[in-house]
Protein backbone atom coordinates (compact mmCIF):
# COMPACT_ATOMS: atom_id res chain seq x y z
CA UNK A 1 0.00 0.00 0.00
CA UNK A 2 1.68 3.23 -1.11
CA UNK A 3 1.82 5.98 1.46
CA UNK A 4 1.58 9.66 0.75
CA UNK A 5 4.01 10.15 -2.14
CA UNK A 6 5.93 13.46 -2.39
CA UNK A 7 3.93 14.29 -5.53
CA UNK A 8 0.59 13.74 -3.81
CA UNK A 9 1.80 15.70 -0.80
CA UNK A 10 2.81 18.65 -3.00
CA UNK A 11 -0.55 18.45 -4.75
CA UNK A 12 -2.42 18.49 -1.46
CA UNK A 13 -0.35 21.43 -0.17
CA UNK A 14 -1.04 23.48 -3.33
CA UNK A 15 -4.70 22.54 -3.22
CA UNK A 16 -4.82 23.44 0.48
CA UNK A 17 -3.35 26.87 -0.26
CA UNK A 18 -5.99 27.52 -2.95
CA UNK A 19 -8.73 26.31 -0.61
CA UNK A 20 -7.46 28.55 2.17
CA UNK A 21 -7.40 31.58 -0.12
CA UNK A 22 -10.92 30.74 -1.29
CA UNK A 23 -12.19 30.24 2.26
CA UNK A 24 -10.83 33.35 3.98
CA UNK A 25 -9.51 35.80 1.35
CA UNK A 26 -10.29 38.79 3.60
CA UNK A 27 -7.91 37.56 6.29
CA UNK A 28 -5.08 36.97 3.87
CA UNK A 29 -5.44 39.84 1.44
CA UNK A 30 -3.83 43.11 2.57
CA UNK A 31 -6.26 45.31 0.60
CA UNK A 32 -9.82 45.40 -0.72
CA UNK A 33 -9.54 43.78 -4.18
CA UNK A 34 -11.78 46.45 -5.73
CA UNK A 35 -10.26 49.49 -3.97
CA UNK A 36 -8.49 51.96 -6.26
CA UNK A 37 -5.21 53.47 -5.06
CA UNK A 38 -4.40 56.42 -7.30
CA UNK A 39 -1.10 56.99 -5.52
CA UNK A 40 0.24 53.69 -6.85
CA UNK A 41 -0.92 53.12 -10.44
CA UNK A 42 0.78 50.15 -12.16
CA UNK A 43 3.25 50.06 -9.33
CA UNK A 44 5.97 47.42 -9.43
CA UNK A 45 6.07 44.78 -6.67
CA UNK A 46 7.21 46.36 -3.43
CA UNK A 47 6.84 45.90 0.31
CA UNK A 48 3.48 47.68 0.29
CA UNK A 49 2.20 45.77 -2.77
CA UNK A 50 4.11 42.43 -2.96
CA UNK A 51 2.59 41.54 -6.38
CA UNK A 52 2.38 45.14 -7.57
CA UNK A 53 -0.76 47.01 -8.63
CA UNK A 54 -2.74 47.33 -11.85
CA UNK A 55 -3.49 50.40 -13.91
CA UNK A 56 -6.14 51.52 -11.43
CA UNK A 57 -3.89 50.89 -8.44
CA UNK A 58 -5.74 47.79 -7.30
CA UNK A 59 -3.54 45.41 -5.32
CA UNK A 60 -2.69 42.32 -7.45
CA UNK A 61 -2.02 40.07 -4.43
CA UNK A 62 -5.44 40.85 -2.99
CA UNK A 63 -7.14 40.35 -6.34
CA UNK A 64 -5.31 37.08 -6.95
CA UNK A 65 -6.31 35.77 -3.52
CA UNK A 66 -9.93 36.82 -3.92
CA UNK A 67 -10.02 35.27 -7.40
CA UNK A 68 -9.32 31.85 -5.85
CA UNK A 69 -12.90 31.64 -4.62
CA UNK A 70 -14.37 32.30 -8.06
CA UNK A 71 -11.94 29.97 -9.81
CA UNK A 72 -12.51 27.20 -7.31
CA UNK A 73 -16.24 27.63 -7.81
CA UNK A 74 -15.68 27.38 -11.58
CA UNK A 75 -13.54 24.27 -11.13
CA UNK A 76 -16.15 22.67 -8.91
CA UNK A 77 -19.22 23.42 -11.01
CA UNK A 78 -17.48 22.66 -14.31
CA UNK A 79 -16.73 19.24 -12.80
CA UNK A 80 -19.86 18.46 -10.78
CA UNK A 81 -22.52 18.97 -13.44
CA UNK A 82 -20.74 17.00 -16.18
CA UNK A 83 -19.90 14.33 -13.57
CA UNK A 84 -23.52 13.92 -12.49
CA UNK A 85 -25.00 14.07 -15.99
CA UNK A 86 -22.29 11.96 -17.61
CA UNK A 87 -22.24 9.48 -14.76
CA UNK A 88 -25.98 8.91 -14.94
CA UNK A 89 -25.95 8.59 -18.74
CA UNK A 90 -22.98 6.22 -18.64
CA UNK A 91 -24.60 4.10 -15.95
CA UNK A 92 -27.85 3.70 -17.87
CA UNK A 93 -26.20 3.24 -21.28
CA UNK A 94 -23.78 0.66 -19.91
CA UNK A 95 -26.56 -1.25 -18.18
CA UNK A 96 -29.19 -1.25 -20.91
CA UNK A 97 -26.92 -1.38 -23.97
CA UNK A 98 -28.63 -2.25 -27.25
CA UNK A 99 -30.00 0.58 -29.34
CA UNK A 100 -29.57 3.06 -26.49
CA UNK A 101 -25.85 2.33 -26.61
CA UNK A 102 -25.83 2.77 -30.40
CA UNK A 103 -27.52 6.18 -30.15
CA UNK A 104 -25.14 7.13 -27.35
CA UNK A 105 -22.14 6.17 -29.46
CA UNK A 106 -23.21 8.37 -32.37
CA UNK A 107 -23.99 11.27 -30.04
CA UNK A 108 -20.53 10.98 -28.48
CA UNK A 109 -18.96 10.91 -31.95
CA UNK A 110 -20.85 14.07 -32.79
CA UNK A 111 -19.68 15.93 -29.68
CA UNK A 112 -16.03 14.85 -29.84
CA UNK A 113 -15.82 15.88 -33.50
CA UNK A 114 -15.56 19.51 -32.32
CA UNK A 115 -12.79 20.76 -30.05
CA UNK A 116 -14.11 21.06 -26.50
CA UNK A 117 -13.35 24.77 -26.16
CA UNK A 118 -14.93 25.62 -29.51
CA UNK A 119 -18.20 23.94 -28.51
CA UNK A 120 -18.23 25.65 -25.12
CA UNK A 121 -17.57 29.03 -26.74
CA UNK A 122 -20.37 28.31 -29.19
CA UNK A 123 -22.83 27.64 -26.38
CA UNK A 124 -21.71 30.65 -24.34
CA UNK A 125 -21.93 32.85 -27.42
CA UNK A 126 -25.53 31.72 -27.94
CA UNK A 127 -26.51 31.97 -24.28
CA UNK A 128 -24.57 35.14 -23.53
CA UNK A 129 -21.44 35.69 -21.41
CA UNK A 130 -21.47 35.01 -17.67
CA UNK A 131 -20.55 32.30 -15.25
CA UNK A 132 -23.99 30.65 -15.07
CA UNK A 133 -24.05 30.27 -18.84
CA UNK A 134 -20.51 28.86 -18.72
CA UNK A 135 -21.73 26.18 -16.33
CA UNK A 136 -24.67 25.36 -18.62
CA UNK A 137 -22.37 25.19 -21.64
CA UNK A 138 -19.83 22.98 -19.88
CA UNK A 139 -22.60 20.68 -18.64
CA UNK A 140 -23.87 20.34 -22.22
CA UNK A 141 -20.45 19.43 -23.60
CA UNK A 142 -18.38 18.10 -20.73
CA UNK A 143 -20.51 15.09 -19.77
CA UNK A 144 -19.09 13.07 -22.64
CA UNK A 145 -15.80 11.82 -21.12
CA UNK A 146 -17.58 11.00 -17.84
CA UNK A 147 -20.27 9.04 -19.64
CA UNK A 148 -17.67 7.15 -21.69
CA UNK A 149 -15.65 6.24 -18.60
CA UNK A 150 -18.72 5.22 -16.63
CA UNK A 151 -20.17 3.19 -19.49
CA UNK A 152 -16.93 1.27 -19.98
CA UNK A 153 -16.69 0.50 -16.28
CA UNK A 154 -20.35 -0.53 -16.01
CA UNK A 155 -19.88 -2.87 -18.97
CA UNK A 156 -17.10 -4.59 -17.05
CA UNK A 157 -18.97 -4.73 -13.74
CA UNK A 158 -22.29 -5.97 -15.14
CA UNK A 159 -20.54 -9.09 -16.45
CA UNK A 160 -19.24 -9.93 -13.03
CA UNK A 161 -20.59 -12.76 -10.96
CA UNK A 162 -21.52 -10.61 -7.99
CA UNK A 163 -24.03 -8.84 -10.21
CA UNK A 164 -25.32 -12.22 -11.39
CA UNK A 165 -25.54 -13.27 -7.74
CA UNK A 166 -27.64 -10.19 -7.03
CA UNK A 167 -29.99 -11.10 -9.87
CA UNK A 168 -30.25 -14.69 -8.67
CA UNK A 169 -31.08 -13.34 -5.22
CA UNK A 170 -33.95 -11.45 -6.83
CA UNK A 171 -32.63 -7.97 -6.08
CA UNK A 172 -34.49 -5.18 -7.83
CA UNK A 173 -32.71 -3.46 -10.71
CA UNK A 174 -32.24 -0.09 -8.93
CA UNK A 175 -30.61 -1.90 -6.01
CA UNK A 176 -28.18 -3.75 -8.27
CA UNK A 177 -27.38 -0.60 -10.25
CA UNK A 178 -26.99 1.82 -7.36
CA UNK A 179 -25.74 -0.35 -4.51
CA UNK A 180 -23.59 -2.83 -6.37
CA UNK A 181 -22.52 -1.55 -9.78
CA UNK A 182 -22.26 2.20 -9.12
CA UNK A 183 -19.84 2.04 -6.13
CA UNK A 184 -17.61 -0.34 -8.04
CA UNK A 185 -17.76 1.58 -11.30
CA UNK A 186 -17.31 5.14 -10.06
CA UNK A 187 -13.69 4.99 -8.93
CA UNK A 188 -12.02 5.85 -12.27
CA UNK A 189 -14.68 8.49 -12.85
CA UNK A 190 -13.95 10.19 -9.53
CA UNK A 191 -10.21 10.14 -10.14
CA UNK A 192 -10.77 11.66 -13.55
CA UNK A 193 -12.99 14.32 -11.96
CA UNK A 194 -10.18 15.59 -9.70
CA UNK A 195 -7.80 15.82 -12.66
CA UNK A 196 -10.56 17.41 -14.71
CA UNK A 197 -10.80 20.27 -12.22
CA UNK A 198 -7.34 21.39 -13.33
CA UNK A 199 -8.66 21.63 -16.89
CA UNK A 200 -11.79 23.34 -15.61
CA UNK A 201 -9.70 26.09 -14.02
CA UNK A 202 -7.87 26.55 -17.32
CA UNK A 203 -11.20 26.62 -19.13
CA UNK A 204 -12.73 29.14 -16.73
CA UNK A 205 -9.64 31.35 -17.03
CA UNK A 206 -9.61 31.06 -20.80
CA UNK A 207 -13.27 32.08 -21.01
CA UNK A 208 -12.65 34.88 -18.50
CA UNK A 209 -9.74 36.07 -20.62
CA UNK A 210 -11.95 36.04 -23.71
CA UNK A 211 -14.61 37.99 -21.84
CA UNK A 212 -17.11 35.12 -21.91
CA UNK A 213 -16.79 33.94 -18.32
CA UNK A 214 -16.57 35.98 -15.15
CA UNK A 215 -17.19 39.65 -15.89
CA UNK A 216 -15.03 42.56 -14.71
CA UNK A 217 -14.59 43.94 -12.14
CA UNK A 218 -14.91 40.51 -10.54
CA UNK A 219 -11.47 39.21 -9.70
CA UNK A 220 -10.92 36.02 -11.65
CA UNK A 221 -7.52 34.77 -12.78
CA UNK A 222 -8.36 34.78 -16.47
CA UNK A 223 -9.93 38.23 -16.21
CA UNK A 224 -6.86 39.47 -14.32
CA UNK A 225 -4.55 38.23 -17.06
CA UNK A 226 -6.75 39.93 -19.66
CA UNK A 227 -6.60 43.15 -17.62
CA UNK A 228 -2.84 43.20 -17.86
CA UNK A 229 -2.44 42.19 -21.48
CA UNK A 230 -2.17 45.78 -22.76
CA UNK A 231 0.48 46.62 -20.17
CA UNK A 232 2.53 43.46 -20.47
CA UNK A 233 5.67 45.23 -21.67
CA UNK A 234 5.53 47.94 -19.01
CA UNK A 235 3.82 46.20 -16.05
CA UNK A 236 4.15 42.43 -16.58
CA UNK A 237 3.27 41.64 -12.93
CA UNK A 238 -0.39 42.42 -13.56
CA UNK A 239 -0.74 39.29 -15.70
CA UNK A 240 2.17 37.29 -14.32
CA UNK A 241 0.98 36.58 -10.78
CA UNK A 242 -2.56 35.48 -11.66
CA UNK A 243 -0.96 33.26 -14.31
CA UNK A 244 1.30 31.69 -11.70
CA UNK A 245 -1.78 31.12 -9.51
CA UNK A 246 -3.49 29.25 -12.38
CA UNK A 247 -0.43 27.09 -12.94
CA UNK A 248 -0.06 26.24 -9.25
CA UNK A 249 -3.76 25.46 -8.81
CA UNK A 250 -3.70 23.33 -11.96
CA UNK A 251 -0.62 21.42 -10.76
CA UNK A 252 -2.31 20.97 -7.38
CA UNK A 253 -5.37 19.32 -8.89
CA UNK A 254 -3.33 17.21 -11.32
CA UNK A 255 -0.94 15.86 -8.70
CA UNK A 256 -3.78 15.16 -6.28
CA UNK A 257 -5.73 13.35 -8.99
CA UNK A 258 -2.72 11.22 -9.95
CA UNK A 259 -1.96 10.46 -6.32
CA UNK A 260 -5.56 9.46 -5.64
CA UNK A 261 -5.53 7.21 -8.70
CA UNK A 262 -2.49 5.37 -7.33
CA UNK A 263 -3.97 5.11 -3.85
CA UNK A 264 -7.29 3.74 -5.08
CA UNK A 265 -5.84 1.42 -7.71
CA UNK A 266 -4.06 -0.79 -5.21
CA UNK A 267 -7.07 -1.74 -3.12
CA UNK A 268 -8.84 -3.20 -6.10
Amino acid at each position, binding site marked *: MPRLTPALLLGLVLLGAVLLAAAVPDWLAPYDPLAFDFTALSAAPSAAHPFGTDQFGRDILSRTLHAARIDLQIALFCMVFPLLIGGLIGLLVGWYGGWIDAVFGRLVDLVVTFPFLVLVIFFVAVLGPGLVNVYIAVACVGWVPYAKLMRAEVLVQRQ*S*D*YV*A*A*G*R*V*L*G*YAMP*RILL*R*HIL*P*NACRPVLVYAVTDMALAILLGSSLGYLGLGAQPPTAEWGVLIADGKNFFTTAPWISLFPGVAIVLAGIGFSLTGDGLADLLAV*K*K
Partner: protein
Amino acid sequence: MTALLTTTDLAMRFPGRHGLTDLLRGIPRPVVRALDGVSLDVRPGETLGIVGESGCGKSTLARCLVGLHRPNAGAVRYQGTDIATLRGSARQAFHRQVQMVFQDPYGSLNPLMSVGASLAEALAVHRIVPPADIPRRVQDLLDRVHLPATAANRYPHEFSGGQRQRIGIARALAVEPKIIVADEPVSALDVSVQAQIVNLLQELQTSLGLTLVFITHDLRLVRHLTHRVAVMYLGRIVELGPTEDVFASARHPYTQALLRAVPRLVPGQRSRDVAVRGELPSPLAPPPGCAFHPRCQRAEPDCAATVPALALREGHWPVACLQADRAIAHSSTIATSTPSV
Protein backbone atom coordinates in the same frame (compact mmCIF):
# COMPACT_ATOMS: atom_id res chain seq x y z
CA MET B 1 -41.36 -38.71 -7.26
CA THR B 2 -42.38 -35.38 -8.76
CA ALA B 3 -39.58 -33.22 -10.07
CA LEU B 4 -38.80 -29.93 -8.37
CA LEU B 5 -37.25 -28.26 -11.38
CA THR B 6 -37.69 -29.44 -14.95
CA THR B 7 -36.48 -28.25 -18.30
CA THR B 8 -38.22 -29.18 -21.51
CA ASP B 9 -36.50 -28.84 -24.89
CA LEU B 10 -34.46 -25.97 -23.58
CA ALA B 11 -32.63 -24.09 -26.32
CA MET B 12 -30.28 -21.18 -25.86
CA ARG B 13 -28.63 -19.52 -28.81
CA PHE B 14 -26.10 -16.73 -28.69
CA PRO B 15 -25.48 -14.61 -31.78
CA GLY B 16 -21.90 -14.66 -33.02
CA ARG B 17 -19.94 -11.84 -34.62
CA HIS B 18 -21.57 -10.46 -37.71
CA GLY B 19 -19.84 -7.55 -39.38
CA LEU B 20 -21.26 -5.10 -41.89
CA THR B 21 -19.50 -6.82 -44.80
CA ASP B 22 -21.07 -10.14 -43.78
CA LEU B 23 -24.43 -8.44 -43.74
CA LEU B 24 -23.89 -6.93 -47.20
CA ARG B 25 -22.71 -10.24 -48.63
CA GLY B 26 -25.84 -11.85 -47.33
CA ILE B 27 -24.01 -14.20 -45.00
CA PRO B 28 -26.46 -15.23 -42.29
CA ARG B 29 -25.61 -14.26 -38.75
CA PRO B 30 -23.68 -17.07 -37.05
CA VAL B 31 -25.36 -18.58 -34.03
CA VAL B 32 -23.81 -20.51 -31.16
CA ARG B 33 -26.19 -23.19 -29.96
CA ALA B 34 -25.15 -23.32 -26.34
CA LEU B 35 -28.17 -25.45 -25.48
CA ASP B 36 -30.02 -27.46 -28.08
CA GLY B 37 -33.04 -29.27 -26.76
CA VAL B 38 -32.13 -30.04 -23.16
CA SER B 39 -34.78 -31.87 -21.14
CA LEU B 40 -34.09 -32.98 -17.61
CA ASP B 41 -35.66 -33.04 -14.20
CA VAL B 42 -34.23 -32.23 -10.80
CA ARG B 43 -35.79 -34.36 -8.07
CA PRO B 44 -36.25 -33.20 -4.48
CA GLY B 45 -33.34 -34.01 -2.20
CA GLU B 46 -31.06 -35.43 -4.85
CA THR B 47 -27.70 -34.29 -6.10
CA LEU B 48 -27.73 -34.11 -9.86
CA GLY B 49 -24.37 -33.90 -11.55
CA ILE B 50 -23.93 -32.25 -14.93
CA VAL B 51 -20.64 -33.05 -16.65
CA GLY B 52 -19.06 -32.27 -19.97
CA GLU B 53 -16.10 -30.60 -21.59
CA SER B 54 -15.60 -26.84 -21.59
CA GLY B 55 -18.00 -25.20 -23.99
CA CYS B 56 -20.63 -27.96 -23.90
CA GLY B 57 -23.24 -25.64 -22.38
CA LYS B 58 -23.02 -26.65 -18.72
CA SER B 59 -22.81 -23.12 -17.40
CA THR B 60 -25.48 -21.89 -19.78
CA LEU B 61 -27.77 -24.61 -18.46
CA ALA B 62 -26.98 -23.57 -14.88
CA ARG B 63 -27.79 -19.97 -15.66
CA CYS B 64 -31.06 -20.97 -17.31
CA LEU B 65 -32.00 -23.03 -14.27
CA VAL B 66 -31.69 -20.08 -11.90
CA GLY B 67 -33.37 -17.63 -14.29
CA LEU B 68 -30.28 -15.63 -15.29
CA HIS B 69 -30.76 -16.51 -18.95
CA ARG B 70 -34.09 -16.52 -20.65
CA PRO B 71 -34.07 -19.52 -23.01
CA ASN B 72 -34.84 -18.99 -26.70
CA ALA B 73 -37.07 -22.03 -26.76
CA GLY B 74 -38.40 -24.54 -24.30
CA ALA B 75 -39.07 -23.82 -20.67
CA VAL B 76 -37.67 -24.15 -17.18
CA ARG B 77 -40.45 -25.10 -14.79
CA TYR B 78 -40.24 -24.80 -11.05
CA GLN B 79 -42.87 -26.96 -9.35
CA GLY B 80 -44.78 -26.95 -12.62
CA THR B 81 -44.71 -23.20 -13.32
CA ASP B 82 -42.71 -21.78 -16.24
CA ILE B 83 -40.28 -19.39 -14.55
CA ALA B 84 -40.31 -17.07 -17.57
CA THR B 85 -43.91 -16.19 -16.72
CA LEU B 86 -43.17 -15.31 -13.10
CA ARG B 87 -43.56 -11.68 -12.11
CA GLY B 88 -43.36 -9.67 -8.94
CA SER B 89 -43.68 -11.55 -5.70
CA ALA B 90 -43.94 -14.92 -7.45
CA ARG B 91 -40.59 -14.29 -9.08
CA GLN B 92 -39.13 -13.20 -5.75
CA ALA B 93 -40.39 -16.46 -4.25
CA PHE B 94 -38.70 -18.42 -7.04
CA HIS B 95 -35.41 -16.60 -6.49
CA ARG B 96 -35.67 -17.34 -2.81
CA GLN B 97 -35.95 -21.06 -3.44
CA VAL B 98 -33.43 -21.55 -6.24
CA GLN B 99 -29.96 -20.22 -5.50
CA MET B 100 -26.61 -20.40 -7.21
CA VAL B 101 -22.98 -20.81 -6.18
CA PHE B 102 -20.57 -19.39 -8.72
CA GLN B 103 -17.35 -20.70 -10.18
CA ASP B 104 -15.10 -17.72 -9.54
CA PRO B 105 -14.84 -17.04 -5.82
CA TYR B 106 -13.05 -13.76 -6.57
CA GLY B 107 -15.72 -12.28 -8.83
CA SER B 108 -18.85 -13.47 -7.10
CA LEU B 109 -18.62 -11.17 -4.08
CA ASN B 110 -19.05 -7.41 -4.20
CA PRO B 111 -15.54 -6.18 -3.25
CA LEU B 112 -16.87 -3.06 -1.56
CA MET B 113 -19.32 -4.79 0.78
CA SER B 114 -18.26 -6.51 3.97
CA VAL B 115 -19.23 -10.14 4.28
CA GLY B 116 -21.78 -9.27 6.93
CA ALA B 117 -23.32 -6.59 4.71
CA SER B 118 -23.62 -8.99 1.78
CA LEU B 119 -25.40 -11.58 3.91
CA ALA B 120 -27.54 -9.00 5.67
CA GLU B 121 -28.68 -7.59 2.34
CA ALA B 122 -30.02 -10.96 1.22
CA LEU B 123 -31.75 -11.43 4.57
CA ALA B 124 -33.29 -7.95 4.49
CA VAL B 125 -34.47 -7.98 0.87
CA HIS B 126 -36.34 -11.24 1.36
CA ARG B 127 -37.39 -10.42 4.95
CA ILE B 128 -36.07 -13.76 6.15
CA VAL B 129 -35.85 -12.52 9.72
CA PRO B 130 -36.95 -9.30 11.46
CA PRO B 131 -34.34 -6.53 11.08
CA ALA B 132 -33.32 -6.80 14.73
CA ASP B 133 -32.38 -10.46 14.30
CA ILE B 134 -30.25 -9.97 11.19
CA PRO B 135 -26.84 -9.76 12.96
CA ARG B 136 -27.52 -13.00 14.82
CA ARG B 137 -28.65 -14.75 11.64
CA VAL B 138 -25.48 -13.56 9.88
CA GLN B 139 -23.48 -15.23 12.65
CA ASP B 140 -25.52 -18.42 12.23
CA LEU B 141 -24.82 -18.46 8.51
CA LEU B 142 -21.09 -17.95 8.98
CA ASP B 143 -21.08 -20.70 11.55
CA ARG B 144 -22.92 -22.99 9.19
CA VAL B 145 -20.16 -22.65 6.57
CA HIS B 146 -17.45 -22.91 9.27
CA LEU B 147 -16.22 -19.34 9.11
CA PRO B 148 -15.34 -17.41 12.28
CA ALA B 149 -17.82 -14.84 13.57
CA THR B 150 -15.25 -12.10 12.98
CA ALA B 151 -15.57 -12.67 9.22
CA ALA B 152 -18.70 -10.51 9.14
CA ASN B 153 -16.75 -7.28 9.50
CA ARG B 154 -14.13 -8.14 6.93
CA TYR B 155 -14.05 -7.61 3.18
CA PRO B 156 -13.79 -10.22 0.42
CA HIS B 157 -10.18 -9.38 -0.47
CA GLU B 158 -9.10 -10.45 3.03
CA PHE B 159 -10.14 -14.06 2.39
CA SER B 160 -8.64 -16.97 0.46
CA GLY B 161 -10.41 -18.58 -2.48
CA GLY B 162 -11.84 -21.39 -0.39
CA GLN B 163 -13.08 -19.01 2.28
CA ARG B 164 -14.69 -16.82 -0.33
CA GLN B 165 -16.47 -19.82 -1.75
CA ARG B 166 -17.82 -20.48 1.75
CA ILE B 167 -19.06 -16.90 1.86
CA GLY B 168 -20.75 -17.44 -1.50
CA ILE B 169 -22.41 -20.56 -0.14
CA ALA B 170 -23.50 -18.71 3.00
CA ARG B 171 -25.05 -15.98 0.85
CA ALA B 172 -26.96 -18.60 -1.15
CA LEU B 173 -28.12 -20.23 2.08
CA ALA B 174 -29.24 -16.90 3.56
CA VAL B 175 -32.56 -16.99 1.72
CA GLU B 176 -33.22 -20.61 2.78
CA PRO B 177 -33.41 -22.10 -0.72
CA LYS B 178 -34.66 -25.53 -1.67
CA ILE B 179 -32.26 -25.90 -4.59
CA ILE B 180 -28.68 -24.78 -4.99
CA VAL B 181 -27.19 -24.80 -8.46
CA ALA B 182 -23.42 -24.95 -8.07
CA ASP B 183 -21.60 -23.99 -11.27
CA GLU B 184 -18.12 -25.51 -11.04
CA PRO B 185 -17.87 -24.35 -7.43
CA VAL B 186 -14.47 -25.91 -6.80
CA SER B 187 -12.67 -25.84 -10.14
CA ALA B 188 -10.92 -22.57 -9.25
CA LEU B 189 -9.63 -23.96 -5.95
CA ASP B 190 -6.66 -26.03 -4.80
CA VAL B 191 -7.33 -29.74 -4.53
CA SER B 192 -7.12 -29.77 -0.74
CA VAL B 193 -9.58 -26.90 -0.52
CA GLN B 194 -11.82 -28.56 -3.10
CA ALA B 195 -12.42 -31.46 -0.73
CA GLN B 196 -13.43 -29.09 2.09
CA ILE B 197 -15.96 -27.28 -0.09
CA VAL B 198 -17.36 -30.52 -1.49
CA ASN B 199 -17.71 -31.94 2.01
CA LEU B 200 -19.38 -28.74 3.16
CA LEU B 201 -21.91 -28.96 0.33
CA GLN B 202 -22.60 -32.58 1.20
CA GLU B 203 -22.97 -31.77 4.88
CA LEU B 204 -25.36 -28.91 4.14
CA GLN B 205 -27.39 -31.09 1.83
CA THR B 206 -27.88 -33.66 4.57
CA SER B 207 -28.60 -31.20 7.38
CA LEU B 208 -30.86 -28.87 5.38
CA GLY B 209 -32.41 -31.34 2.95
CA LEU B 210 -31.13 -29.30 0.00
CA THR B 211 -31.44 -30.32 -3.59
CA LEU B 212 -28.15 -29.82 -5.35
CA VAL B 213 -27.34 -29.38 -9.01
CA PHE B 214 -23.59 -29.81 -9.25
CA ILE B 215 -21.95 -28.73 -12.48
CA THR B 216 -18.39 -29.82 -13.05
CA HIS B 217 -15.95 -31.31 -15.50
CA ASP B 218 -14.40 -33.46 -12.79
CA LEU B 219 -15.75 -36.98 -12.97
CA ARG B 220 -14.27 -37.94 -9.60
CA LEU B 221 -16.37 -35.28 -7.92
CA VAL B 222 -19.44 -36.47 -9.78
CA ARG B 223 -18.91 -39.98 -8.56
CA HIS B 224 -18.24 -38.86 -5.00
CA LEU B 225 -21.11 -36.44 -4.67
CA THR B 226 -23.99 -37.10 -7.03
CA HIS B 227 -26.93 -39.47 -7.18
CA ARG B 228 -27.64 -38.99 -10.86
CA VAL B 229 -25.51 -37.63 -13.64
CA ALA B 230 -26.28 -35.92 -16.92
CA VAL B 231 -23.50 -35.99 -19.50
CA MET B 232 -23.52 -33.09 -21.93
CA TYR B 233 -21.94 -32.79 -25.34
CA LEU B 234 -22.28 -29.69 -27.55
CA GLY B 235 -25.44 -28.38 -25.95
CA ARG B 236 -27.24 -31.72 -25.64
CA ILE B 237 -27.58 -34.31 -22.94
CA VAL B 238 -26.20 -37.55 -24.29
CA GLU B 239 -26.74 -39.72 -21.24
CA LEU B 240 -28.73 -39.30 -18.04
CA GLY B 241 -28.72 -41.97 -15.38
CA PRO B 242 -27.94 -43.03 -11.82
CA THR B 243 -24.31 -42.17 -11.12
CA GLU B 244 -23.37 -45.65 -9.89
CA ASP B 245 -24.83 -47.31 -12.97
CA VAL B 246 -23.39 -44.84 -15.45
CA PHE B 247 -19.94 -45.23 -13.94
CA ALA B 248 -20.31 -49.00 -13.91
CA SER B 249 -21.57 -49.39 -17.45
CA ALA B 250 -21.76 -46.19 -19.45
CA ARG B 251 -23.95 -46.54 -22.51
CA HIS B 252 -22.90 -43.57 -24.63
CA PRO B 253 -19.52 -43.75 -26.39
CA TYR B 254 -18.77 -40.23 -25.23
CA THR B 255 -19.39 -41.09 -21.60
CA GLN B 256 -17.22 -44.15 -22.00
CA ALA B 257 -14.45 -42.02 -23.48
CA LEU B 258 -14.69 -39.52 -20.61
CA LEU B 259 -14.45 -42.30 -18.06
CA ARG B 260 -11.40 -43.74 -19.80
CA ALA B 261 -9.77 -40.31 -19.59
CA VAL B 262 -9.99 -40.03 -15.80
CA PRO B 263 -6.46 -40.12 -14.41
CA ARG B 264 -5.67 -43.23 -12.36
CA LEU B 265 -4.02 -43.04 -8.98
CA VAL B 266 -2.33 -46.40 -9.49
CA PRO B 267 0.76 -45.77 -11.65
CA GLY B 268 0.83 -49.18 -13.28
CA GLN B 269 -2.66 -48.82 -14.60
CA ARG B 270 -1.91 -45.69 -16.53
CA SER B 271 -3.89 -45.79 -19.71
CA ARG B 272 -2.29 -45.09 -23.05
CA ASP B 273 -5.62 -45.04 -24.85
CA VAL B 274 -6.63 -41.88 -26.57
CA ALA B 275 -9.84 -40.95 -24.80
CA VAL B 276 -11.51 -39.07 -27.61
CA ARG B 277 -10.14 -38.43 -31.06
CA GLY B 278 -10.00 -34.93 -32.43
CA GLU B 279 -11.12 -31.59 -31.13
CA LEU B 280 -14.44 -30.47 -29.79
CA PRO B 281 -16.22 -29.17 -32.92
CA SER B 282 -17.10 -25.49 -33.01
CA PRO B 283 -20.56 -24.91 -31.56
CA LEU B 284 -20.96 -22.38 -34.39
CA ALA B 285 -21.07 -25.26 -36.86
CA PRO B 286 -21.98 -28.50 -35.09
CA PRO B 287 -21.69 -31.66 -37.21
CA PRO B 288 -24.92 -32.96 -38.74
CA GLY B 289 -26.67 -35.93 -37.18
CA CYS B 290 -25.16 -37.02 -33.89
CA ALA B 291 -22.78 -34.19 -32.92
CA PHE B 292 -20.30 -36.74 -31.57
CA HIS B 293 -20.06 -38.91 -34.68
CA PRO B 294 -16.86 -37.37 -36.16
CA ARG B 295 -14.99 -38.33 -32.98
CA CYS B 296 -16.84 -41.55 -32.23
CA GLN B 297 -15.11 -44.90 -32.66
CA ARG B 298 -18.40 -46.68 -33.21
CA ALA B 299 -19.97 -44.29 -35.67
CA GLU B 300 -22.06 -45.84 -38.43
CA PRO B 301 -23.23 -44.05 -41.58
CA ASP B 302 -26.66 -43.33 -40.11
CA CYS B 303 -25.03 -41.43 -37.21
CA ALA B 304 -24.16 -38.59 -39.61
CA ALA B 305 -27.75 -38.33 -40.79
CA THR B 306 -30.00 -38.71 -37.74
CA VAL B 307 -29.92 -36.68 -34.55
CA PRO B 308 -30.35 -39.29 -31.82
CA ALA B 309 -33.00 -38.46 -29.24
CA LEU B 310 -32.41 -39.01 -25.53
CA ALA B 311 -34.41 -42.24 -25.05
CA LEU B 312 -34.29 -45.46 -23.07
CA ARG B 313 -33.24 -47.59 -26.10
CA GLU B 314 -33.83 -50.89 -24.30
CA GLY B 315 -31.75 -49.87 -21.28
CA HIS B 316 -32.51 -48.66 -17.78
CA TRP B 317 -31.69 -45.02 -18.32
CA PRO B 318 -31.91 -42.73 -21.34
CA VAL B 319 -29.07 -42.28 -23.77
CA ALA B 320 -28.78 -40.38 -27.03
CA CYS B 321 -26.92 -42.85 -29.23
CA LEU B 322 -28.19 -44.79 -32.21
CA GLN B 323 -25.66 -47.52 -31.45
CA ALA B 324 -26.56 -47.73 -27.74
CA ASP B 325 -27.40 -51.44 -27.87
CA ARG B 326 -24.03 -52.21 -29.36
CA ALA B 327 -22.29 -49.88 -26.93
CA ILE B 328 -23.45 -51.89 -23.93
CA ALA B 329 -21.33 -54.78 -25.06
CA HIS B 330 -18.17 -52.68 -24.86
CA SER B 331 -18.86 -51.12 -21.51
CA SER B 332 -17.84 -54.12 -19.46
CA THR B 333 -14.19 -53.23 -20.00
CA ILE B 334 -14.73 -49.93 -18.24
CA ALA B 335 -16.63 -51.28 -15.28
CA THR B 336 -13.51 -52.91 -13.88
CA SER B 337 -11.35 -49.82 -14.03
CA THR B 338 -13.51 -47.01 -12.69
CA PRO B 339 -11.49 -44.60 -10.61
CA SER B 340 -11.83 -44.13 -6.91
CA VAL B 341 -11.93 -40.75 -5.24
